[in-house]
């Protein structure tokens, strides 16, 4: 069924762990995250604020401020090398060149003092050897045209504040893709935008990734955006991936109680009825400082068992790439063993 998953693997993240040292204790922002990204695939990472979705991707880009943060474990294999172990100098040839990133707020990610042309030429010349200024400018105009900026030839010399939010995000996408990046990491690219503009930008990302064969990691909290954009989805909670599946499967058969609750708690325009009570997950997201070594969702979980309060659930493969970290899918013996170990 999944032609995407048979394609070549572009990025293989294994057991990534990123911790932050704070006065209150160690924050395990990302704690053992693994996923693979295939060529041309759009992978969604969904989770609520503080679940570690942005930190995961900043770790891959090696943009975690250190101190206080540190990637303490794991690897990310890109083109045969572990980019987490690269020297900063080597990383620079990859960052922005082969792996690009766009951020939530396009105003803060563009320099307000420099013309768009200056910023784009700088990026292109930094990453393409032996390209002249004029060639880089031509390239910038071409990219701006590609992302649908009207009268690009004139607009390329404008300053960021002369663009609207949606237009700025287009400029960011043009910059990110100007070096033919193989991976585009989009961190909540449309959260700051209006729905009609969001539709434009998502449409653009989708078309460009199809045209240029770029793999996309889309970080979002919006389950609607994921449904329309992604081939595969990882659901994160408190620094861990709790479920991973193809998009259709995840929405049709959510296995983890958190995923199920999340999907049920969003009001839907097409099917929900007026006056119906919304499903809601009780309680608050966990405090990630000094999390106990057990399922982080258990205090809010309607199906929590003794073993959930004692130990982390292992990842269970439900078939066809559908993975879930929940004790519900383990045998009684496994649970008994884990419970005993935890008590000992």
């Amino acid at each position, binding site marked *: 069924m999944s032609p995407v998953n048979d394609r070549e693997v572009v990025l293989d993240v294994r057991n990534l762990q990123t911790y932050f040292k704070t006065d209150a204790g160690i924050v395990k922002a990302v704690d053992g995250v693994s996923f693979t990204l295939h060529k041309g695939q759009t992978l969604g990472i969904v989770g609520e*604020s503080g679940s570690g979705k942005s930190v995961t991707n900043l770790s891959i880009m090696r943009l975690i401020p250190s101190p206080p943060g540190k990637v303490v474990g794991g690897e990310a294999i890109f083109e045969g090398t572990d980019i987490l172990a690269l020297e900063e100098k080597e990383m620079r040839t990859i960052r922005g060149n082969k792996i690009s990133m766009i951020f939530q707020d396009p105003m803060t990610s563009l320099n307000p003092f420099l013309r768009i042309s200056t910023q784009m030429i700088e990026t292109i010349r930094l990453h393409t050897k032996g390209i002249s200024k004029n060639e880089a400018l031509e390239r910038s105009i071409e990219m701006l045209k590609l992302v649908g900026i009207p009268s690009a030839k004139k607009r390329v010399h404008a300053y960021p504040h002369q663009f*609207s939010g949606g237009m700025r995000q287009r400029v960011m996408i043009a910059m990110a893709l100007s070096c033919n990046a193989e991976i585009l990491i989009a961190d909540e690219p449309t959260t700051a935008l209006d729905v009609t503009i969001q539709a*434009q930008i998502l449409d653009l990302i989708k078309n460009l990734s199809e045209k240029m064969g770029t793999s996309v990691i889309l970080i979002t909290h919006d*389950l609607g955006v994921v449904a*329309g954009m992604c081939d595969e989805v990882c659901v994160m909670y408190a620094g861990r991936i709790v479920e991973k599946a193809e998009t259709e499967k995840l929405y049709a058969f959510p296995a983890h109680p958190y995923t199920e609750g999340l999907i049920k708690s969003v*009001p*839907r325009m097409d099917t929900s009825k007026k006056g119906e009570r919304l499903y809601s*997950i009780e309680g608050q997201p966990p405090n990630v400082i000094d999390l106990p070594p057990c399922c982080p969702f258990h205090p809010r979980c309607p199906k929590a068992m003794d073993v959930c309060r004692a130990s982390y659930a292992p990842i269970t493969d439900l078939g066809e790439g559908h993975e879930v970290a929940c004790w519900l899918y383990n045998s009684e013996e496994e649970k008994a063993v884990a419970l005993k170990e935890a008590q000992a």
Partner: protein
Amino acid sequence: MKQPILQVRDLKQHFPVTSGMILQRQVGSIRAVDGISFDVYEGETLGIVGESGCGKSTAVRSISQLYKPTGGSVIFNGIELTTADPRTMLAARRDIQMIFQDPYASLNPRMTVRSIIAEPLVIYNRRNLLDPPLSKLEIEHRVEELMERVGLSKVFKNRYPHEFSGGQRQRIGIARALALNPKIILADEPVSALDVSIQSQILNLLSDLQKEFNLTYIFIAHDLAVIQHISTRVAVMYLGKIVEISEAVNLYDNPLHPYTTALLSAAPIPDPVVERNRQRIILTGDVPSPDKERFGCYFYDRCPKRMPWCSNHIPPMFKRGKNHEVACWLYDETRDYHDVSMEEAKADAAKASK
């Protein structure tokens, strides 16, 4: 026939744009709200939906007189608020409360939860506007009762806002709004800053409170699914105007205005099967700036169905069926404007302006 609790007529809120360092001259105005009219009935929820800059927040702030409206009238329970003297206004405000979007910015960080929730009671008590007057102990009890009602344990009453999460802070804001037993609550994007799982808790709390205290809501959001879930009626705003207003069910099943249609089709639905088979209307361009006077339809620049006529004739509200009104020339039953050429439309507009 039910009497409306709130009547808004041709409400306008223009903000002056000034130029010059010392002698500030007014060089123009931002027409944030440009003539909106609607009624709100007791116990219902009127949802206002629209993109950023369409004037939805300004509209509720003008209604609650936080901004002095430039024109039009707001009648609450028979009292005209725009011309009310301060004392009448103070009394009326007890019945009109607000909940704000950002639970981080709308609570004073230096006040404890107790003093935040008690503040409206203390103010009205001091001015003898409470009937009967409350003693200190009674205020204390009322605060505890309110906290429990919105789902906060009363043991937290001596804590400060920063010790709470976003959802809990929004509960504090709701408790504060409820303190004076208001009749109507104006909620300005109360769930937009919250996570999905918390959003549904707050939406459920708001609808429980509505039933319990027979509250009337004006509820602003940009999320169409949230608006549909909570609203009895919905008004769609664009560039300071209401373009369509209707019962919620009708609006979602049968959107009339081209903007409403585009808005509904742009909103993602959390279901991959539905999403893949959907036809999107993708609007081109951005929302224009509301800084100049317009003589035609406000949506003209981006409308996929525009006609020459629309460029210089502002559409009035056309009635389509029960409680469904739309500001679009396509729905004028007396005339079809498709064949009107630009020249004819211009001539007609010129004649009308004379």
